[in-house]
């Protein structure tokens, strides 16, 4: 049962890593603006669509 020491240590370590990552991301300002990234995420698709259209025009020529 002394394996429980190892398991406890590991689980707390993993928890601490996630906790550290969270603090780091807050510190970097990742949560300061939660609106724009949500909108920005949708733009990529629009751009690809535009390129596709251009390609299709080219193939028609």
């Amino acid at each position, binding site marked *: *049962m002394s394996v429980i020491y190892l398991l406890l240590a590991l689980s707390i370590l993993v*928890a601490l890593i996630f906790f550290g990552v969270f603090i780091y991301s807050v510190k970097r*300002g990742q949560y*300061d*603006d939660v609106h*724009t990234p949500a*909108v920005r995420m*949708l733009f990529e698709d*629009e751009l690809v669509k*535009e390129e596709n259209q251009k390609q299709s025009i080219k193939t028609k020529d």
Partner: protein
Amino acid sequence: MQDNCFHCGNSCDQDAIVFDEKAFCCRGCKAVYELFSSNDLGCYYDLQDAPGAIPEEVAGKFDYLDNQKIVEKLVEFDDGDIQVVNLYVPHMHCSSCIWILENLHKLQAHIRTAQVNFPKKTVRITYKSSALSLKEVVQLLSRIGYEPYISLDDFDKGKKEVDRSLIYKLAIAGFAFGNVMFLSFPEYFEVEEYWLEEYKHLFRWLMFSFSLPVVFYSGTDYFISAYKGLKAKILNIDVPIALGILVLFLRSTIEILFDWGTGFFDSLTGLVFFLLVGKFFQQKTYSFLSFERDYKSYFPIAVTRIDKQNKTEENIQVYDIEVGDRLLIRNSELLPVDAILINGEAQIDYSFVTGERDPVRKVSGDKLFAGGKQLDGAIEVEALKSVEQSYLTQLWSNDVFSQNKDASFVNLTNKISKYFTSVLLIISLVATAFWMYYDSSMALNVFTAVLIIACPCALALSTPFSLGNMLRIFGRAKFYLKNAHVIEKLNDLDTIIFDKTGTLTTNKKVAITYEGLELTEEEASLLKNTLRASNHPLSRSLYTFLASQSISTLDSFEEVTGKGMLARQAENSIQVGSASFVGSPQVDSQLQTTVHVKANQEYKGKYTFNNQYRLGVQTIFNALSRSHKLVVLSGDNAGEKEQLAKMLPKNTQLLFDQKPDDKLNFVKGLQEKGEKVMMIGDGLNDAGALAQSEVGVAISENVNVFSPACDAILDAEQMHKLPSFLLAARRTVNTIKYSFVLSFLYNVIGLYFAVTGQLKPVIAAILMPLSSISVLIFVTLLTNYTSRKLKLFKN
């Protein structure tokens, strides 16, 4: 054909420009469209219909960005080759805006990246400064209709540190709470089991170490606040909280040290976590609004100085203006200092300062005040004062602006806490005394148990949650509050003061009435065409007011500055202007704005410009007069006194010709009589009164545009809901009172266990979250119900 401009959505007149099968209202819009479509940025129009703005004429406007000293102050980062600048773009309003601004590099290759912060309406641009100057970046933005707003406020801003400590504290408390819950769970059921006996000490010491940062970091605010309260001899709500946290920690530590029990680490971390969640919820900020603005947000950053000897022009920072400097103020530029007009025709719009819509005409030698905006051509002025010493800006040296209004405010929780804490201490002492006599070994146990269980967690949570929720509801109804305390203050008001111009009246619409002989069709057409030729603001308002006529060319047209116009077409002649110019039989009343008309040598009549009162002003006053004393404080002359007196309830006090200082002192006078005052205003001239009053509300036609420092910003369209907002504030405070009753009930149950000496960790662990969460649900439901009942969202 489309009726609305493809780019900006404004309606196009007959003279719409058709290009690429799309209609545009003006050349500017068409140019932006051409620029975008030729750079493969047509996607801009797919995301949102007509997202654009008409680009403004900017020639010369940003010349001050040639001055390296000013540029240095504005950029965030500069390594000689790369510069980063963060610009505020007021027009930003939709996803198309984000898209086009983040694709700036497609329009200008030297722009590396552009990143938008939509809630703040800012864009951070990184560009190669060796190839592209800041001025060119700003001009590019202006050319595509996204003119950045650069004011004196940007100048001494520096890097603002965002305070995120509450998030860290909350994260640590939450992290510790979760882990301690896991670790304390095995011992809840107290089974005599071999493995549990073996490892429980390890578990306990782990819980102890998790609770250390919670007590000594996350909970520090409560200790500090309690200490400050005690020092000022106030028993605020943080006193019993800090006491509870401390007792929980000490008793738990002693219990595990002497192996008496498991301690209350779960309740301890949970308590701090819930309290911080409440604090976090209450802290709602509107990042696109600012409640701390002063004149600096309105004022330009630079001005053109004319060297008297060399006749050269240079751009200087406004702080560098010295008395006697000769300044050049261009069309639609703001005057930064008090000055004397030297050269040119001044047409000064003081609407920033007074809310007054009509511009004032000034001639050479007249004194001009800082804050006025030149409307018509360029003028030369000589500075009489420096920026900080000018008439308007001096207002900000008043003490009101440096005081913290919230510091003196005692909220409801703290009022109750005084009694709560005293009763709590009495109960704990009586219970301890009883057990000392009955069974002295239990005395300490009971004493700590009372302090632990009576820790007013639910009590402390009900206020932030009900106020925080109402704050959000108000925000959705377009009434933006600076913080949650404002709701409590709204509930406790005696007098409400209204500014007139811009607050009770609207700047958008003008009511024009005509008195006199009817004009013939030819005369009406001539009048309209004459007005069309003039740039005077009154001519423009009258032009839009009159029925449309066919456009025709005038045979002759002459404008006599400051007086009026003469025009002739075929055999008809017309004179439009002031009474003396036209030769009116009546003398102009000084109190009203009028335009007189004389056609074919015969006096016809006059157009009177009246202020247009906002919709429902009468209903607001009638509703509010039942519960509050009402006052109207106007900076204008008494011209509309009769009309106002007729419209408003009889007991309304009407005061005219009030200077900014007078308004401030009026509020102060009322407060010295012990009255609680709410001031509702809009212009910078109200700034002093807004700051002095208990609740200062700024009315804004467009919340994205600027409003003076205040406690709340109300969208002008929502003004008629003011009585409902006040009622909602009252109900919210009542909700808090009900929730206090509920949390006292929980405390009584808990005290029963504590006083009888039966408090087990598991009971505390159940009772604490149960009471907090049920109180939380109770207040949220009740505030939501209130908002629905009062129809805050309906227009």
